[in-house]
């Protein structure tokens, strides 16, 4: 019979790190309280049996105050919805996780759980940090005092995991009484008692008190009244500027590689229809988007470094004041920042927000952040606007786009905030974790998996769209193709944006995935070589159909950028918004208004720029 083990503990105590070692999983660990927002399930096989192990979001007390904490509370009370074929309602064993440097706070939760009657094994993490600070802990005495096995763990190397597994096996074999339901409220006096008890325990088992502030206190600068905010803006600015500037050599490399590959392939292939489809329909499309993969990888890498170090919580603190001005909360910072990678995990991260209003507003703001799928689009459009051979100017332009999206998103959020009739929740509080060196191995693995998952998701869509476009533009005859007929229906909508039907088709196809816009443009204007520079060159000389006016003018390019900044084109975002907002009404209203708004804003901008430039 399989039983269920639950990892529980305070936020950022090292549960996910332990869970990964314990089960051989690879979930993301982040030096930020509130990294895990959903449960994770894995199987643990002992020589004789197999058990389920659950990782849970961190909780401060057994009384939950946000949605992620509620998940843990629900798992504590009833594991049936979380594990397949559960035979029991209650978890058989809890693995309590506490930080060796924070015992006097983290033991309080352990006390609360023990008082409910759960069978427990205690894992004490960060023993390497405690050792470095000269803090000695008598684990044997602690185990006697708590009346449960206590296992020290070194989370950087995984030392102690085998002992933890052994202790779990032994404890599972002993049968205990069933736990009582957890209380739904804890009196202040009870809490005080629990803290005093924890303080006493720590006094009995630990050599010295709290971490002494020694050496250079980097927070004194990063959270300085003046240098703090300035440093924050510089960090964010560098972050966004880096993404294009640093990646551009790698992009050029991939670009040449693809071009050479396609050229040699077409020289080798016979001149038949499928060779045409393969080179012009598929490879050109794939190549035009994958040129931008280094940018995306760099974005994930930089985010990983920030996540590993502990800057995110400081960022949340620094951003609280400006965010609260538009009705949000410092805790919205992390969801919004991860929205710069992808809206889907970002929307899930919004669960850590304690108030319903802040959460809804954050969900409204996330689709307006510049996600990684928009990078290829902006990359192409900026190359067209500024010229392909000016990576620094393009990088500055990219930062400009990021800044404009933030300003735009803030304004939208402020307006939506006025309209939402939900009371704001009280307060912002966050624990600032100790600084850690990011584990390079974790950051790199994460970057690679994320980048590959982008390729895996985008690749098939680009191929399908490529084939579709090829078919539609080849039959019945190249000059009177289906695409022509369909495209001309779009014309009236596009002329106010200063564009013609060919860009319109690319815009429609971008609803499959934003990056498809780039591959569709590459195919529609099929340049002789696939080299990005020559694509840009071809586009420069493209004219509005039936006229001699250039198609891609500053006005129409800026209009397209504005369109992509606002438009919500991602079906997965809609699906996750439905899940997180709890219904279809709000997400659909959001999608429609962002699409219509994008069109209106784009037309407005194009007309204004055209008027201004004469």
């Amino acid at each position, binding site marked *: 019979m399989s039983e269920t083990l639950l990892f529980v503990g305070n936020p950022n105590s090292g549960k996910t790190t332990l869970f990964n070692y314990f089960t051989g999983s690879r979930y993301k660990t982040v030096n930020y309280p509130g990294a895990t927002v959903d449960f994770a399930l894995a199987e643990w096989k002992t020589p004789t049996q197999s058990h389920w192990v659950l990782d849970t979001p961190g909780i*401060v007390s057994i009384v939950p105050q946000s949605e992620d904490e509620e998940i843990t509370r629900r798992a504590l009370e009833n594991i049936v919805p979380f594990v397949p074929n559960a035979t029991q309602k209650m978890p058989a064993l809890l693995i309590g996780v506490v930080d060796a440097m924070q015992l006097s706070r983290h033991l309080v939760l352990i006390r609360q759980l023990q008082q409910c009657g759960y069978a427990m094994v205690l894992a004490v993490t960060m023993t390497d940090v405690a050792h470095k600070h000269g803090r000695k802990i008598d684990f044997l005495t602690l185990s006697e005092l708590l009346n449960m096995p206590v296992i020290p763990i070194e989370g950087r190397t995984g030392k102690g995991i085998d002992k933890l597994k052994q202790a779990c096996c032994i404890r599972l074999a002993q049968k205990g009484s069933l736990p009582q339901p957890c209380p739904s409220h804890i009196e202040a006096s009870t809490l005080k008692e629990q803290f005093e008890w924890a303080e006493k325990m720590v006094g009995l088992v630990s050599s010295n008190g709290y971490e002494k502030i020694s050496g250079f206190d980097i927070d004194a600068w990063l959270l300085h009244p003046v240098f703090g905010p300035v440093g924050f803006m510089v960090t964010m600015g560098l972050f966004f500027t880096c993404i294009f500037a640093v990646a551009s050599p790698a992009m050029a490399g991939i670009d040449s590689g693809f071009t050479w590959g396609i050229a040699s392939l077409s020289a080798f292939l016979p001149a038949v229809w499928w060779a045409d489809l393969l080179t012009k329909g598929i490879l050109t499309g794939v190549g035009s988007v994958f040129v931008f993969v280094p940018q995306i990888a760099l974005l994930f890498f930089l985010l990983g470094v920030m996540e590993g170090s502990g800057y995110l919580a400081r960022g949340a603190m620094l951003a609280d004041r400006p965010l609260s001005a538009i009705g949000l909360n410092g805790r919205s910072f992390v969801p919004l920042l991860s929205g710069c990678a992808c809206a889907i995990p970002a929307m899930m991260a919004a669960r850590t927000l304690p108030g319903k209003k802040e959460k809804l507003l954050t969900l409204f703001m996330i689709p307006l952040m510049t996600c990684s799928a928009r990078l290829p689009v902006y990359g192409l459009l900026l190359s067209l606007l500024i010229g392909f051979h000016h990576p620094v100017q393009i990088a500055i332009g990219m930062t400009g786009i990021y800044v404009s999206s933030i300003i735009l998103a803030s304004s939208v959020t402020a307006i939506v905030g006025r309209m939402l009739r939900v009371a704001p929740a009280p307060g912002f509080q966050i624990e600032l974790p100790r600084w850690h060196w990011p584990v390079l191995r974790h950051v790199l693995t994460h970057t690679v998996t994320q980048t590959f998952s982008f390729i895996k998701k985008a690749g098939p869509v680009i191929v399908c769209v490529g084939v579709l476009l090829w078919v539609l533009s080849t039959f019945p005859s190249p000059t009177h193709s289906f695409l022509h007929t369909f495209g001309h229906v779009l014309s009236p909508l596009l002329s106010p944006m200063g564009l013609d039907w060919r860009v319109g088709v690319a815009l429609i196809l971008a609803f499959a995935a934003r990056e498809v816009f780039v591959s569709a443009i590459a195919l529609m204007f099929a340049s002789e070589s696939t080299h990005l520079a020559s694509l840009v060159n071809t586009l420069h000389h493209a004219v509005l159909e039936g006229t001699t006016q250039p198609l891609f003018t500053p006005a129409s390019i800026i209009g397209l950028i504005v369109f992509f900044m606002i438009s919500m084109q991602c079906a997965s975002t809609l699906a996750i918004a439905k899940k997180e907002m709890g219904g279809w009404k709000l997400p659909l209203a959001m999608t429609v208004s962002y699409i219509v708004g994008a069109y209106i804003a784009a037309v407005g901008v194009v007309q204004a720029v055209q008027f201004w430039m004469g």
Partner: protein
Amino acid sequence: MSVIALHTHKKTLNTLSTGCSAVVSGFQGDQCLCSRLQELGLIEGSTICLAYRLSFGGPLAVKVKGATLAIRSEDAACVLVQ
């Protein structure tokens, strides 16, 4: 009149200056917020130290029981100190 006088006598966490230590002596205001602050370790009788404070009325950070907690200034007004 007496109520106002009483309030002005109470010293709250947000009035401390950077680097100052104090002892938590009680709570006032929103119940939900107060209990969360207590769960985080701001328990009556515990010694705290105001470590950092941002400008423009931004959040402040206190050290308590070996942890550093960032709290909004307005919320810190709920914590009475001595």
